[in-house]
C-alpha cells in the first residue's frame, strides 16, 4: 500500500527571450531605466576586462586566467543585489562581482598575475578570496553565514559554484547544513554547461541542478542566467529572504561558457563550433542591450561613449597593475603564521640570499 510522503517542484524564471524581447507583460519594476542601464554598463566593463586579461595572458603579462565570458549577467546582478555588509564567497570566475564590490581592477590582475597581494586589498572587506578547490567555497559560505547568524547580524552570504562543482560532496553537505540550520546563504550555480571538457549531462542525470535543493529541504529554483531581469528578481528575493532569516536558497542560473575553460584550455578539442554559435545567440550582454534599445534607454551614441570610457578605465588599471612593485621575498615567510617561527626565520634568511643571487643573474632554475 502506497501513499505520497513528499512532493517537490522547481520553477524557472525568465522575462526576456533570446532577442531581448519580453516573453509576456513585464512587471512594473522592470520598466524604468535603472538599474538596467547600470547593469548593462557593468556587463560591458566586465567583458572588456575579460578581453584585456586574455590579451595580457597571451602576451606573457598574466598567468593562466579563467574567463567570465557568458557569465556577465550573473556576476553583475548578483554583486549589485548584494549589500556592502553582505559577504561574497566567490569561486575563480567572479571577477566582475569582485570589481563591483570594490576590489580595484589592478588587484584582480595582480591575483591572476601570480601575486598573493591580489587578495589582500582592504576594499575586499570580509569577502573571501577566490576558491580554487572546487566546491569548498560552499562550506565556507555556510561558515560565514553561521557567524552572521550567531552574531545576529541580518546580512546574507552569496556564493557561486559551477555545474561541475555540484557533483562534489562539499556542495551537497553545504546545502544540507544550510537547510538544517536555516542559514542566511544564497548558493548560485553558474551552470555554464561545461566543466572543462565534461558536459553538464555527464555530471548528473537529473533534469535540473536546482533540484539538488530538495534533498536538503531548501528552496531551489532555476533562472535564465542570460536574462538580467530574471536574475534581478530571483537573486534579489533570495538575498532578501536570507537577510530576513527565512533560510537559504539554491539558484541554478542557466548560462553558457562562451570561452575556453581557461587560457590553458582549448575547447575546440571537445565541443562543436555549432554549439558555441548557438550559445552566442543567447549572449547576455547583447540581450540586455537589445532590451534597453527597445525601451529607449540606450542608443548607439551612449554605447560608443561607454565603450570608450570603459576602455580608458581598463587601460589605466592595467598601467597600475604593471607598475605594482615586486613582492618582497619576506612576504612568503611573514604571513604564514601570525608570527614567523624561528626555523622559518632561518629559511627566510636563506631565501633573501637566494633572491639576491637571482637578482644578480645567478644561474636560476631551468
Amino acid at each position: 500500500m502506497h501513499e505520497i510522503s513528499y512532493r517537490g517542484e522547481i520553477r524557472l524564471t525568465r522575462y526576456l527571450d533570446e532577442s531581448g524581447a519580453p516573453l509576456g507583460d513585464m512587471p512594473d519594476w522592470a520598466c524604468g531605466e535603472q538599474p538596467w542601464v547600470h547593469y548593462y554598463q557593468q556587463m560591458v566593463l566586465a567583458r572588456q576586462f575579460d578581453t584585456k586579461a586574455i590579451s595580457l595572458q597571451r602576451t606573457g603579462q598574466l598567468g593562466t586566467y579563467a574567463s567570465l565570458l557568458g557569465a556577465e549577467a550573473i556576476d553583475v546582478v548578483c554583486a549589485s543585489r548584494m549589500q556592502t555588509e553582505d559577504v561574497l564567497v566567490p569561486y575563480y570566475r567572479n571577477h566582475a562581482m569582485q570589481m563591483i564590490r570594490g576590489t580595484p581592477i589592478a588587484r584582480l590582475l595582480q591575483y591572476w598575475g601570480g601575486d598573493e597581494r591580489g587578495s589582500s586589498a582592504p576594499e575586499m572587506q570580509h569577502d573571501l578570496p577566490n576558491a580554487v578547490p572546487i566546491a569548498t567555497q560552499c562550506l565556507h559560505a555556510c561558515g560565514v553565514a553561521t557567524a552572521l547568524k550567531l552574531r545576529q547580524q541580518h546580512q546574507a552570504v552569496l556564493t557561486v559554484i559551477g555545474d561541475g562543482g555540484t557533483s562534489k560532496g562539499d556542495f551537497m553537505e553545504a546545502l544540507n547544513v544550510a537547510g538544517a540550520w536555516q542559514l542566511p546563504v544564497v548558493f548560485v550555480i553558474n551552470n555554464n554547461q561545461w566543466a572543462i571538457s565534461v558536459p553538464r549531462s555527464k555530471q548528473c542525470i537529473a533534469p535540473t541542478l536546482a533540484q539538488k535543493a530538495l534533498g536538503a529541504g531548501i528552496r531551489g529554483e532555476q533562472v535564465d542566467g542570460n536574462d538580467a531581469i530574471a536574475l534581478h528578481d530571483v537573486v534579489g528575493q533570495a538575498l532578501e529572504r536570507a537577510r530576513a532569516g527565512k533560510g537559504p536558497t539554491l539558484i541554478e542560473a542557466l548560462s553558457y561558457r562562451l570561452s575556453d575553460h581557461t587560457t590553458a584550455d582549448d575547447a575546440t578539442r571537445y565541443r562543436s563550433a555549432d554549439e558555441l554559435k548557438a550559445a552566442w545567440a543567447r549572449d547576455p550582454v547583447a540581450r540586455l542591450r537589445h532590451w534597453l534599445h527597445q525601451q529607449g534607454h540606450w542608443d548607439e551614441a551612449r554605447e560608443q561613449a561607454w565603450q570608450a570610457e570603459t576602455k580608458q578605465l581598463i587601460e589605466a588599471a592595467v598601467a597600475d597593475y604593471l607598475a605594482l612593485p615586486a613582492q618582497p621575498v619576506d612576504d612568503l615567510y611573514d604571513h604564514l603564521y601570525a608570527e614567523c617561527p624561528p626555523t622559518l626565520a632561518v629559511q627566510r634568511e636563506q631565501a633573501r640570499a637566494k633572491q639576491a643571487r637571482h637578482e644578480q643573474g645567478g644561474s636560476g632554475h631551468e
Partner: protein
Amino acid sequence: MNDNAITLLEAVNLALARAMADDPDVVLLGEDIGTNGGVFRATAGLQERFGERRVIDTPLAETMIAGLSVGMATQGMRPVAEIQFMGFIFPAFEHLVAHAARMRARTRGRLSCPMVLRAPFGGGIHAPEHHSESTEALLAHIPGLRVVIPSSPARAYGLLLAAIRCDDPVIFLEPKRIYRASKTLIEDNGQALPLDTCFTLREGSDITLISWGAMISETLDAADRLAAEGVSCEVIDVATLNPIDHATLVASVSKTGRCVIIHEAPRHGGMGAEIAATLGEQARAALLAPPCRVTGHDTLMPYYRNEQLYLPDTDDIVTAVKATMEYVE
C-alpha cells in the same frame, strides 16, 4: 571545585569552559558534543552552560565541520571543532590543507583562520578499527598548521587555552589512552602555555628521551627504571610538532650526546624521522650514538586483540636506551 585534581579529559573540558566564558567568539561544534557531551565526555555540561548556539551538534560530515570552521574563522570567530576520532579526520583534510593553513598567507593577512580542530588519537583503549591511529605526521608536514599534543592534565589545560587564543589554525590531538590515566591539581587561572616550546619533564645527563602524547607515560616509566640502573635520562615532551622547537632538543642532545625518540605512529616518515634528521644535522658533533627511534611498525594498527603488540612499550624503550648507551663507534 576548580581546584580539584582532574584528569586530562577534564582539563580539556575546563579549558573549553574557560575559553568560552572569556570570549563570546569561541564556539564549539562537532558530532555528539551537545546533549551527549562528546563520546568521551570532553564537552560534558558545556551545552547546558553555554547554550545550543555555542555548543553545536552538527550533521554527520567531517568535511563540513572543517569547512564551516574555516568560514567562521575568516569572520573572526574562534570555532573549536571536534573530530570524534582522528581516524575520521581525512574528510577534513582538504579544508585544513588547502584553506585553513593558507587563509592568512593567501590574503597576506587580510583574513586569518583562528580555528582549533580537536581530535582524540592513538591506541590502547580496545576500540574498533579506525579508532586507534596516530597520523600526526600528516598534519605536522603542512606549513601553516600548528600541531599540538598535550601529555598531562596541566599541559592539556594550558595548551588548549593557547590553541584557542592563537591566531593560527591549530590541530589539537588528545591522547585518549591517557584521558583518564592520572589526576593533577589544576588551578583554573586562565593561564596558557606556550605553543613554541618543548617541555623538559625531567632533567638528565646520559641520554635524552624525546616523545609526545600517551607515550610520555611509558617514556617516564622507562626513565624511572633506567634511573634505578644508573642511567640518567632527560625526558622531553615535544608537545608542539609544528612549528617544532628544535632548539630545545638540539641543546639537550648536545648535552647528553645520546637520544631515543619514541612515538606510536608508524616509523616510516613519522615525526621521529624529522627529529632524528635535525639532530643529525645540528647536534652531529655531540652525538655519541645515532638517534634511535622506538616507534609503531610500518603496518596497520591491528584490531584490539593485538594492539599491545603494536604499541611500543616500556621494555622497548629500555632496550633501545641500553643499546644506545652501549653504542661505540
